[in-house]
C-alpha cells in the first residue's frame, strides 16, 4: 500500500515556510493593512505561529496567493524563493547546509521534498550529457504554478550559489510564454532562459553535480539525513497524492497502467482514487498524459530518440498514433518540439 497526503491534510509546520512568508509580508508592512491577508490560511495573527501548529497545503497556498495579491509586485515570488532554502526546517536544513556537492544537495531536496518544498516536487534525471531538475505540481494549484515555479527555481538557484560559492550555469526552461517581468528572471535566476518549453526544468552540465562545495561535509550530511526520520517520524516525508501517482506512473509507464490497478496498489477503491484526484482538480487520464509527455520529451532530448522509437517505448501501435496523442498532450507535433530542442546550444 502506498501512503499519500492530500491538499486538506494538515501537516506543514506553520513555523517552516509559512513563517517565512509571514516574515516577508511583515517586512513589506502588510501587517499594517489588516487581517484580510490571513483569511483562509488557518493563521490567527502576525506573530510567530505556535511550535506545534500545522497548515494544510490548501491553506499555505492561500497564504501565498493572499500575500502575492496584496503586494502586487513582480518580485514577490523571487524574494520568497531567496529565503526558502536551506531554511530552518530542522535536520533536513542542516543536511542541506552540509551537502558536499550539488548532487547530494539535490538528493536531499528530493528525499525531503515533503518538508523542504511541499508544494512542488523536484525530480532529477541525468542522461545524455545533461542533468535535468524538473518540477511538478504537488497539490493541484494550476493558477499559482507560475509563481510557485519562480519561487522554487529561485530557491534552488540561490541555495546552490551560496553553498557552492559561485553562480552555477543553469539553463531555465519554463512551461509558459515569456512574462512581462523577465528582468526578475534574469536577476534572480540567470540569463539562460527558455520559454514555451512544456516542462518546468533547470538544466545543467552533469560535471557540476560532483564538483565539491567549499563547506560541504558529506558525512555530516548523511548523519543529518538519518536523524530526519527520528525527528519528525517517517510519515513526515510521505509524498502528496499527485507526487505518489506521478512516481508510480513513471515506474510503470511501459506496462500500460490503469486506474483500477493503481487504486489496488494504493489500497483504495477506484471510486475513492477518482474522488481524491478530482479534489486536486485532476483526473487519471490527465496525470497519465502528463507523465507520458514528460517521458517522451526526455527520450527526445536526452537519448535523441525519433518518433518510432518513442512510440515503441511508450507502447503505441505506430508512430502516427503517437504523433496524434503527443499533439493532444502538448499542442505541438513531436518533430516541431524535437527541432526546438536540437536547436538549443550545448550546456557549458
Amino acid at each position, binding site marked *: 500500500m502506498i501512503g499519500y497526503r492530500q491538499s486538506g491534510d494538515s501537516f506543514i509546520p506553520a513555523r517552516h515556510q509559512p513563517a517565512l512568508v509571514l516574515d516577508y509580508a511583515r517586512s513589506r508592512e502588510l501587517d499594517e493593512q489588516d487581517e484580510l491577508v490571513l483569511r483562509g490560511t488557518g493563521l490567527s495573527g502576525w506573530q510567530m505561529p505556535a511550535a506545534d501548529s500545522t497548515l494544510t497545503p490548501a491553506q499555505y497556498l492561500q497564504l501565498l496567493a493572499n500575500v502575492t495579491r496584496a503586494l502586487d509586485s513582480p518580485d514577490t515570488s*523571487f524574494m520568497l524563493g531567496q529565503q526558502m532554502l536551506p531554511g530552518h526546517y530542522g535536520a533536513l536544513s542542516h543536511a542541506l547546509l552540509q551537502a558536499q556537492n550539488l548532487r547530494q544537495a539535490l538528493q536531499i531536496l528530493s528525499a525531503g521534498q515533503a518538508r523542504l518544498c511541499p508544494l512542488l516536487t523536484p525530480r532529477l534525471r541525468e542522461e545524455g550529457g545533461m542533468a535535468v531538475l524538473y518540477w511538478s505540481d504537488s497539490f493541484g494549484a494550476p493558477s499559482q504554478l507560475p509563481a510557485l515555479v519562480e519561487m522554487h527555481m529561485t530557491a534552488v538557484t540561490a541555495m546552490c550559489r*551560496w553553498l557552492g560559492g559561485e553562480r552555477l550555469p543553469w539553463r531555465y526552461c519554463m512551461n509558459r510564454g515569456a512574462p512581462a517581468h523577465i528582468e526578475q528572471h534574469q536577476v534572480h535566476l540567470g540569463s539562460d532562459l527558455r520559454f514555451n518549453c512544456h516542462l518546468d526544468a533547470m538544466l545543467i552540465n552533469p560535471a557540476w553535480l560532483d564538483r565539491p562545495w567549499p563547506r560541504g561535509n558529506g558525512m555530516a550530511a548523511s548523519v543529518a539525513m538519518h536523524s530526519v526520520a527520528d525527528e519528525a517520524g517517517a510519515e513526515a516525508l510521505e509524498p502528496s497524492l499527485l507526487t505518489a501517482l506521478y512516481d508510480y506512473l513513471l515506474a510503470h509507464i511501459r506496462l500500460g497502467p490503469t486506474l483500477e490497478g493503481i487504486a489496488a496498489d494504493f489500497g483504495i477503491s477506484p471510486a475513492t482514487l477518482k474522488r481524491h484526484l478530482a479534489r486536486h482538480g485532476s483526473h487519471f487520464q490527465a496525470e497519465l498524459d502528463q507523465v507520458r509527455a514528460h517521458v517522451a520529451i526526455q527520450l527526445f532530448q536526452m537519448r535523441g530518440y525519433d518518433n518510432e522509437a518513442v512510440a515503441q517505448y511508450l507502447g503505441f501501435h505506430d508512430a502516427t498514433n503517437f504523433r496524434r496523442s503527443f499533439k493532444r498532450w502538448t499542442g505541438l507535433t513531436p518533430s516541431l518540439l524535437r527541432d526546438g530542442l536540437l536547436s538549443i546550444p550545448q550546456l557549458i
Partner: protein
Amino acid sequence: MLQLHRSTLIASGLALLACVLLYSTLGVAKAFHMWKWTDIVSEGGTAVMAGSWVLFTLSSRPGGLVTRLLAGGLALIMIGSFADCMDEFFAISKTARWDHWLEAMVPVGMLVVTIGMYYWRHEQFRLNEHLQKRERLFRDHRAFDRITQLANADYLRRQIRHEQARRPGQQCALVLLDIDGFHVINREFGQSEGDRVLQAVGHMLLLNLRNDDLLCRYAGDRFALLLPDTSVAEADALASHLSAMVGQMRHHAKSGRVHITLRHASSSADAAPEVLLTELSRVISQPAQPAADPRIAAATA
C-alpha cells in the same frame, strides 16, 4: 497619514456639530412637507463631497502650509454648504445675520483653496526638480519600486523606446550595475539589511548623476542607467566613477561595516530595449573573477 491631522479632523467635526446645535436651538424646525429635496440633495451633497476631499487631502499629504491651506479651505466649503443645507430643515428669523455669515464660508473657503493651489504649484516644481533623475518627463506612480523609490524595469523599457523615438540617431548609452555578492549580504545580515544597502546605493548613484540621466532599479540588486547624449566610452567612465564612489561609501549594519562593491556593463541604446537588456544582463552575470569578489571569498573562508 490621518493620525498626523487628528486635531484638524476633530475641529471640523466639532464645527459641524456646533452648526447643528446652533440651528436647532435658534431656529424653528420646518414641517416635513416644506422640505425642498433638490436643495437638500445639492447642498448636502456639496458638503459631503467637500468633506471627502478634506479626508483625501489629509490622508495623502504630510503636514505643512500647502496641506493646511487646501484642507482648511475645503473644510470651510464643507461647513458653509452644511450650514446652507441646515437652512432647509430649520427656519431662521429674517433679522438674524449669523446664518449669512456661515454660508459666506463657501466663497472664503474657495479663496483659501485657490491660495493653497498656488503654493502647491510651487511645491510641485520643487519636487519635480528633486525627482528629475528618477522619472524624466513622465509620471506614473505605479512604476515605482517601494524600497528604493526608483522606477522599475517596465518604466526603463518605455523610456528607452521614448528616447529612441524622440531623438533618432542621437547617441545614448545604457548601463547595468550589479552589487557584488549581494546575496551574501542578505544571508549574513538579513533581508532588511539588504534593503538598506539597496537604498544607500540608490542614493549614492543619484547624487552622482546629471539631471538628464535616469536611474532605475532593474530588479533585485541590479540598477540601470539611461544616459542620453553619451557615448559608450563616456558611459563606461561614468560607471567606473560610480562604482568607485559606492566602493568608498561606508555602510554600517548592526554587526559592523558592510563593504559594497559594484560591477557594471554598458552598451549603446540603439536596439530594442528587451534585446539590449537581455544582452547586458548576460554580460554582467558572467561569473566574476574570484579575486574581484571579496564578499564571496570572505564567506567561504
